[in-house]
């Protein structure tokens, strides 16, 4: 058996207590640092209500998971230093086969943490839909959703286009949204599965052919944001990106008026506005 190191006064060291103190000290020092510096630096940032709530989620999870990480790391370091074999010959350790107190408290603590995380995530999700795609009948709608501005996102290989049903169903190649507005994005596809990811807005919704996948986002101030396709959709998936803008409502009104005039001649060639579209009968491409 490992002889415990003898401290100055000749008392045997309590490894358990020493480890717990080390861990607590590490938590007290590291957790606030992680939460303050890393947590707030975690994207997607402050571009929309949903993005802000995601940052809050991430910060809280970091603050909870940092002590868990430290528990294992400090334990490993402590154990590997204190209980390393100091002889070349093979010596057995003490035959400890378990300890029900430690087992029960470990189960209780991990269960409580997990249930809290699941409850908290559910609460955040129910509040506003969290910016994720929710299918054709969204269950978790933010307040005031009946008056949301409808924008349809149409994905196809390999670009996004956007239709504004509130403005005569005009279809435009770049996304512009008014500031401080609740927007209902209806994401759909014309061919393979894509995923509409507006990074700074904290929005991601898969685009499926024949499906209207709704995501809500509440914009804040004017902003330029990146749009990527986040689901592998074939050859040029890596180039399926775009930049969108949030502008103040006067600019938006002017912009959409100009778009309607500009695209009026082609409007009659577009299919009538629908919640989703079906691809052409099975057609293959390289």
């Amino acid at each position, binding site marked *: 058996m*490992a002889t415990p190191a003898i401290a100055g006064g000749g008392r045997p060291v309590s*490894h358990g207590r020493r480890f717990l103190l080390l861990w607590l000290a590490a938590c007290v020092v590291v957790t606030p640092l992680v939460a303050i510096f890393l947590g707030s630096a*975690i*994207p*997607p940032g402050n571009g929309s209500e949903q993005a802000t709530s*995601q940052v809050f*989620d*991430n910060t809280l999870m970091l603050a909870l*998971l940092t002590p*868990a*990480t430290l528990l*294992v790391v400090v*334990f*490993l370091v402590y*154990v*590997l230093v204190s*209980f*390393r*074999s100091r002889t070349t010959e*093979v*010596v*057995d*350790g003490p*035959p400890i*086969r*378990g300890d029900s107190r*430690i087992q029960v408290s470990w189960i209780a603590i991990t269960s409580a943490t997990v249930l809290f*995380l*699941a409850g908290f*995530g*559910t609460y*955040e999700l*129910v509040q506003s839909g*969290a910016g*994720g*795609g929710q*299918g054709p009948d*969204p*269950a978790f709608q933010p307040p005031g959703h009946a008056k949301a501005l409808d924008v349809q996102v149409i994905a196809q290989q390999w670009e996004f286009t956007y239709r504004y049903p509130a403005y005569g169903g005009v279809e435009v190649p770049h996304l512009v949204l008014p500031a401080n507005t609740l927007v209902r994005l209806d994401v759909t596809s014309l061919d*393979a*599965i894509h*995923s509409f*990811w507006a*990074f700074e807005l*904290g*929005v991601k919704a*898969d685009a*499926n052919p*024949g*499906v209207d996948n709704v995501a809500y986002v509440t914009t804040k101030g004017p902003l330029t944001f990146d749009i990527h*396709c*986040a689901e*592998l959709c*074939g*050859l040029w*998936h*890596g180039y399926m990106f775009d930049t969108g803008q949030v502008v103040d409502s006067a600019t938006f009104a002017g912009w959409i008026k100009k778009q309607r005039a500009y695209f009026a001649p082609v409007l009659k060639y577009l299919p009538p506005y629908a919640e989703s579209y079906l691809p*052409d*009968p099975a057609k293959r491409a*390289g």
Partner: protein
Amino acid sequence: MSAAAVEIRPPVWRRLFGFNALTAVLLGVGGWYLGWFIGHQVTGPSIDYFGDIDQNDISIFLGYFLGVGGFLIGLGFGVYPWARLRGYPPSLREKETEGVGRYFGLCTDHKVVGIQYLCGIGLFFFIGGLNAMLIRAELLSPTNHIFPPGQYLTLVGMHGTMMMGMMTSGILGPFANYFVPLMIGARRMAFPRIESLTFWLLMAAGAILTTTIFFGGFPTGWTGYEPLNDQANGGMDAYIVFFALVGISMCLLGLNMIATIVTMRAPGLTWSRLPIFCWGVVATSILNLLAAPVLIAVLAMAMLDRTAQTVFFNASGGGSPYLYQNLFWVFGHPEVYILALPGFAIVLELLPVFARKPLWGYRLAVAGLLGVTLLSFLVWQHHLFVSGINADLRPFYMLSTELISIPTGFTFICGLMTLWRGQIRFTVPMLFCLAWFFNFLIGGLSGVFLSDVPSDVTTHGSFFSMAHFHYTIMGGLVFTFFAAIYYWIPKMTGFQLNELLGKIHFWVMFLAFNSTFAPLFAVGFLGQPRRVVSYPAHLHFLNEWVSVSAFVLGASMLVFLYNFVYSLLFARIPAPANPWGSLSLEWQLPSPVPVHDFDRLPVISGEPYAYGEQGGPPIAAPAPAPAGGMS
């Protein structure tokens, strides 16, 4: 046996004829051309989409099927059923004493199959790893491209599919086949021919996936999502046949393991005395047996969509791409635990040996393994949080996913507490096991972000999730795969691996692994989607850093390869029968293990891992004279 020993062996060139790998390859190629020919005869012009480049899905599928059939017949898998049909008596053993040749054909010795698996899977592991190097070479720059986008996607798909397909058997194939019978005191597996079949199916599958490059590759990555799957050209068929064969192999492997462990344990080896590695094998095998059939079914549907014009996944015809996603992940989530659980089992099996203590909380560890097994069937839609399907059920899947961290935590507490007050020796296998704690901790905790729906909206489909599953699978499975190699190779071959090279391999691999995948969490958080050939300019530095680290990680594998080849083929320093001083049954046998394993079947009289306990080990060396706890 004695009659065969005095028989003069025919010259080498004569021994090349017969049922062996060479015949198998020849018949496989012949079968391919026969299938290809028949396919062209039965295909009407309306189905032959790729007539201009001579790619015809029916021909390709028939070619692969008949090719696999020819391959298996060439190996001799038809001989025994044919003999039985003609009334010959049943037998369980075949071709176990034919020198080196037994490694190149059907052999029912579980130890030969284990070594076949190690070399075969190792080969495809290196091909998959090479693909990863090429992917990182392409991502060195967002604008200067080495590969056109189609080739790049094929590389991504081949890397993912090869690793996810082949490494499902990465630990069960080599180590469970070799050591489960030795650990439970049996002389063979329950179904020795099926055992060999699982290996050769996997080899056929690997070869088939590699042939995808002749048909233009495939663009879907390892998930093979519809409707891109249906759009893709002939290379997609290779993916479908590959994964279906892997599924059959996994299913049979799981069946064989469960049957062996349930029915063939030595007297006295009760369930509560079973080594924890065998429990891990049972848990993984349950997943294999129940999840793989779903994969085979969904791939059969995809094949019918591609050949027989069915519309299972075609929205215009009334089908749904969601169906594919659902069925794929019903398989796909247990699949990732098929990769992770053997790693847990290896860690828990090796820690007692090198900490010189019994496994702490044996029952809790078993409960952890079985709990993960059960829960892993209930979480699959967390892969579809933003897909728009069953959005109301997201709180349930968030809960069930986070619940998995409770049984996973059992593995952690049992492993960590086994180290407490131990006499820890830092051997090479121990280093790899200790690295598992760190890697899987990071992998598991980053998974909490992905399981949380609001956070998943940003991280889903980004490099964050890619970094997460590399931490769990590469950090969890591949590190323990190497732990198992360094631990058990002396028993499997009778030779030592060089320890210094092993330590160099470990440290380079551990540091380069973290240097490769930790920055990818940041890359994902900063907005880079997975599987892209180009990325924003501000991510250039991080991507370069990751690529260079990945090359170092690749180089660490060369250190291992050198050590493996040099130690086993050139240095050949004989290993002692029990170099680690382990108390488990397999180490009590001589090295290398005799063909029939045990002269007398052992009787188990106590709990495993009796390190430091009074009265010595409960399992003494199996010997004619009963000794100690033996009878």
